[in-house]
């Protein structure tokens, strides 16, 4: 037992860290490309509209005539729902993560570089936001903005917009904290100190040294966050405050979960699609993370 190496396959840094192979990369990017393409061009697919209710074909199983993935209990085509849902789910997720990353990243980097009271205020904001549960925030936001006034029924913002806003608010502190931590560690590096000592302006240091180095780690987490947001939206749909029923993958799941015992595919197929998308996004997140680790270990 003595002396057998614990790491049975000591090999290059990348493999030992569990870097996924190229096959996975192609699959993940392929799937994401398909999803994004569908989100943009789904309208042109030769499918029945997602909210067209075929009252003569209720609850069809998979691979039925005219409905490749079947229909759910009110006659809407599952495949069309998935195609339309790609736009809603990915739209909400990517928008919220993108805007949240930009705002959070800016706040975090500025806080890290400025220090002082700016840092304290921003950190306090991050901590407070993180302490407010997502569910509470979203319920309150939906009630505040998306519930129209009964006297003026067309008032009230579209549900998707309100979801984007509340999810952005959720993402900001997460990515902000990360950006701040990363910026802090980069600020302490030698080359930054050197740049400061030669009189480089703070703004240019930020632009040329800090941001480009913080960005990759943010990107990796952003991908992961996008996956998490898609899942959160599904959870909110089950609670009744997600996107309108059937309009996103999560709300398809929520709408059909009552029929799980009768037409299981109407729930399991959207769940599978969500899982695949999240997996692909996680994959990219991991991929970036490993590339960063490589870079960082080389510097």
């Amino acid at each position, binding site marked *: 037992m003595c*002396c057998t190496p614990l790491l049975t396959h000591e090999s290059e840094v990348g493999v030992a860290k569990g870097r996924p192979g190229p096959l996975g990369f192609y699959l993940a990017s392929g799937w994401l490309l398909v999803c994004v393409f569908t989100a943009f061009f789904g309208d042109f697919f030769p499918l029945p509209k997602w909210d067209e209710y075929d009252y003569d074909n209720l609850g069809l199983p998979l691979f039925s005539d005219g409905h490749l993935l079947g229909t759910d209990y009110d006659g809407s085509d599952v495949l069309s729902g998935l195609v339309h849902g790609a736009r809603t789910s990915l739209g909400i997720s990517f928008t919220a993560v993108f805007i949240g990353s930009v705002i959070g990243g800016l706040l975090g980097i500025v806080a890290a570089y400025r220090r002082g009271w700016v840092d304290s205020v921003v950190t306090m904001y991050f901590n407070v936001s993180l*302490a407010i549960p997502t569910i509470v925030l979203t319920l309150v936001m939906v009630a505040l903005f998306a519930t129209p006034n009964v006297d003026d029924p067309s008032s009230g913002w579209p549900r998707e917009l309100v979801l984007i806003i509340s999810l952005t608010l959720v993402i900001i502190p997460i990515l902000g904290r990360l950006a701040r931590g990363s910026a802090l560690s980069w600020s302490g590096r030698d080359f930054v100190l050197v740049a400061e000592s030669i009189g480089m302006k703070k703004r240019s240091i930020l632009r040329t040294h800090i941001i480009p180095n913080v960005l990759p780690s943010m990107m990796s987490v952003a991908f992961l966050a996008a996956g998490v947001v898609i899942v959160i939206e599904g*959870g909110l749909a089950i609670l009744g405050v997600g996107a309108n029923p059937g309009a996103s993958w999560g709300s398809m799941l929520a709408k059909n979960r009552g029929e799980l015992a009768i037409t299981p595919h109407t729930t399991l197929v959207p769940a599978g699609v969500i899982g695949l998308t999240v997996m692909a996004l996680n994959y990219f997140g991991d991929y970036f993370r490993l590339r960063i680790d490589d870079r960082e270990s080389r510097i």
Partner: protein
Amino acid sequence: MKYRVALNNLAKAVLVLFLVTFSISILVRWLPGDPIEILMPFATEEGRAALRAELGLDINVVQYYFSWLFDLLRGDFGVWYASTGDGGGVPVRSMLAVALPRSLLIMLYTMVVSIVFAVPLGIFLAYRAETRTDKTISNVLFAVSSIPSFAIGLALAFVVGVQLDLLPVIGYVPFAENPSEHFRSLVMPVVSLSIGLIATFSRLLRVDMIATLREDFVTMASSKGLSNMWILWRHVLRPSSSTLMTSAALQMGALIGGAVVIETVFALNGFGMLLTTAIATRQYLAIQSLVALIAVAYIVFNFIVDVLYAVVDPRVRGGRG
């Protein structure tokens, strides 16, 4: 020196708590719909004014907040508004006594189960790094961690609960009432929540352990003739577990929210559902108390993480700035 740092952290934590509860109390006031309107839409103006006074809603927000705060510090979580006014509604404390234990237990069991399964799995994967076993299991874990927990819950409820008829699909049984039913009613919710965590945790642990395994002190231990298992569990696990711990604490925070959906799916009627009902019926007092509880829990977890971080990894202890 340590004292001052600890006090500083404590002060910051209190400030966060204050800001969270205060902003929530303002935010819910903006919600459309007045609780008095909800309870008594047909009352006369005097009736409504009387109820408003009894429930304490005629004072301004700030006063209301502080009176709530002082009550809370004395252990009074407030009353669920009822149309008969003060004394007619159920104390939030009694409702919490029903709803909170089940949510806490679910979270506790989930954490325990996740860690119990993730640690050996992570060690095993690190030990067998890059073999086919490792690759297969890692990929499976990766896939599984991508499935939303409520989807797993729904599928489990259908397969295990309905088709195989092994476990109850709804309801919660307190431990005191029937211990074996208690656990049976929680198996599926806990499994749904744990699967993702097990996958995440074991992957995290695996990565960290592989990194640690490459360090000098490991080679030294190995050359001293200690068995592999001994080394793995005794020497390598501790320093590699910092990411795991941080992640566990962060997940605890996420669990508080994520458990609401599982509670809905399995009709467990816990803390999460109490909170959503409070928001829907504009129970300002109950909302403030419940959110305060969550915020406290969140801060406590973070605090525990910070402490554990220092305890577990001796390399960190000295070098923290």
